[in-house]
């Protein structure tokens, strides 16, 4: 596929599935900078190997498998963090996730909808905290809250959003045996 069309197809597929691929990494890698770096390697490897892709429907799964190797490579290359998951566990989480890419895309697609259901102040708060360059400490100070208090509030909001996207995804998409969510 090393043609202009190949470029375009690759760009289209990566743009479409970038969120899911990044989420796969994010499930096992905590630092956003590390996620960025690994995503970079995944993009590069995927680009180099894109010639071998014959089934574009399976692109997300294929890229998640690449992500698994890039995560392990990255973790081995850097100093071990004592709160880093075991390699086998990490691989298992990513591999299982690669089987759920449709569900995960669907969940992410419903996020804006769920975010809009939040009260205005909470929505503002979440966008503040997840905006690049903003730290929780800064936001807590600005809101006059303790960091711990803000963290607890965010934890509740994240759970609310997670529940909401799962409900929305199941309504829209119907039962999905591939979901991996036994709820």
């Amino acid at each position, binding site marked *: 596929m090393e043609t*202009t069309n190949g470029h375009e197809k690759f760009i289209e597929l990566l743009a*479409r*599935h970038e*969120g899911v691929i990044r989420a796969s990494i*994010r499930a096992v890698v905590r630092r956003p900078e590390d996620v960025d770096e690994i995503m970079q390697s995944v993009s590069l490897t995927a680009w180099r190997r894109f010639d071998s892709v014959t089934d574009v429907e399976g692109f997300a799964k294929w890229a998640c498998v690449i992500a698994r190797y890039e995560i392990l490579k990255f973790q081995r290359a850097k100093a071990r963090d004592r709160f880093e998951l075991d390699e086998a566990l990490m691989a298992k989480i990513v591999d299982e996730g690669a089987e759920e890419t449709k569900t995960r895309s669907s969940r992410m697609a419903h996020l804006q909808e769920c975010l809009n259901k939040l009260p205005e102040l909470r*929505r503002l708060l979440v966008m503040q905290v*997840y905006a690049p360059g903003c730290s929780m400490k800064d936001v807590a100070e600005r809101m006059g809250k303790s960091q711990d208090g803000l963290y607890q509030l965010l934890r509740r909001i994240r759970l609310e959003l997670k529940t909401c996207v799962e409900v929305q995804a199941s309504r829209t998409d119907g039962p999905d045996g591939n979901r*991996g*969510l036994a709820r």
Partner: protein
Amino acid sequence: MIDDDNLRLLDEWRHGRISESDFAILQQRLNESAELRAELRALADVEEGLSSLALQPIAIEPLQQPKRLVARQWLPWTLAAAAAVMALVGWLRNVDGGKSSGAPVASVTALLVDEAGAEFAQKRQPGEVRFDPGSYELRSGTVQLRYANGADLVIQGPARFDIRDEFHTQLLSGRVRAIVPPTAHGFTVETRDVTYEDMGTEFGLSMDATTGESTMHVFDGQVNLHRAGAKEILQSVHEGDAVRCLDGKFAAAPELDLDQFPSPGDIGFLRWNALRSEMLAEPHLIAWFPFVRENNASILTNAQRAHGVPDGRIAGAQWATGRWAGKQALLFDRDTDFAELEIPGEYQELSIGVWLKVDRFDWEMNAILNSNGSDSGDVHFQMTRHGLPRGGVLGPEKTSASWVGNPIPAAKWVHVVSVMSLPKLQNVIYVNGERVWEVDVKSPVPAITPGFCRIGNWLQEGLKYGSSPRAMRGKIDEIAIWDRALTQTEVRALTEKGRPSLLWSRDNPPLRTPMPKP
């Protein structure tokens, strides 16, 4: 159902608040429970989605501006692919548009689409080719940025600049050329004292950080000048005019030196020039004809002096423009136009790379570079009437010969490389890095001996017997010869490095008729 304790552990681990003992418990539970692992992924999905949404312009005004947007390392584009990316920027926006139509896509402020020798300072560099709002320092070289609105900025190092958004860039020092299409009207480059607002078209701006003086030349269209931070227009400058500003006072600008403001088209030539030392450092490069016109215009200089291949002699072929405005080429237009070379010595492997642009394929065979004879060990390299390349070393009996790729098109700069290997019993010709001609031979001749050769027209013995000429109609602007067989990867890299422009594509159209038999 995931209980609260497990949810707490997951969230605390994800946000760096977990204790060592709790982490051990969490790992054990994750190992045992597929449900808990799925929960972890679901939380990661939500957080990734939130991060992506927070990157996009939304209706919510942040309470404070981010200090500096952290560049998401989106894609490690090759520069070639960057062209396709920018073409797709509009499409990407439509795909997402900030709505929940699919996985969110991060918006792009500007991308590096071309460069020559660019070196950025640490921590003031783009993420591969992506420029997000922030501060940059180009220490040397030249870069072309394309903003999401379509504006191009060619920046010559050393330069320091801050990108605020797709319409606002501050030039702290250095020189830039801005090319602003209608979609980017209002694109501004700010300096310490003055803001230059392009009303469409093209201008060059230099900024001296020591004195604070800025000088601006309008190449085309109109540029409005505002005092920094103010909306009021101080002055409008039109095509052909220039202005210099120091401490808020305007004065006549010095005479324009166009070399100070390279255009996007110049970058390819700058890059090619920068390759010179890299090319000459390759020990197997035995000759490199960069097609630079000398005082004696009939000399075709071989820049690789270490291997005893002499300069060539030009007969009839005219000097013309090559791949870039400043690059020279030889135009072969008449049957009598050619240049002659001597490649002395005997070789087991040989690669000949040529950049050419064919006007027409007038003859059954159209010569690129051929030994003057047709003896065993001679080299032939030519194109058929269909533009299909053919050739290799003469003499050995072929077991197979076939065209396996698309022909050389007319009216397009093309990189054609003939690779001959006696040990591998193979001749291959690549067009823009793709295999197009393959020959397998039974047994090798003792050596490849090109000897005296002609470029652009063959001194063929056949003419004596009434066969057609084998003249070329078109330009050649570079020939390189190695005494080893280049790999396809190497050929592709050379094609990429010598690409004529950002929008040039390696792909060529297929033959419209059934592929002929060799």
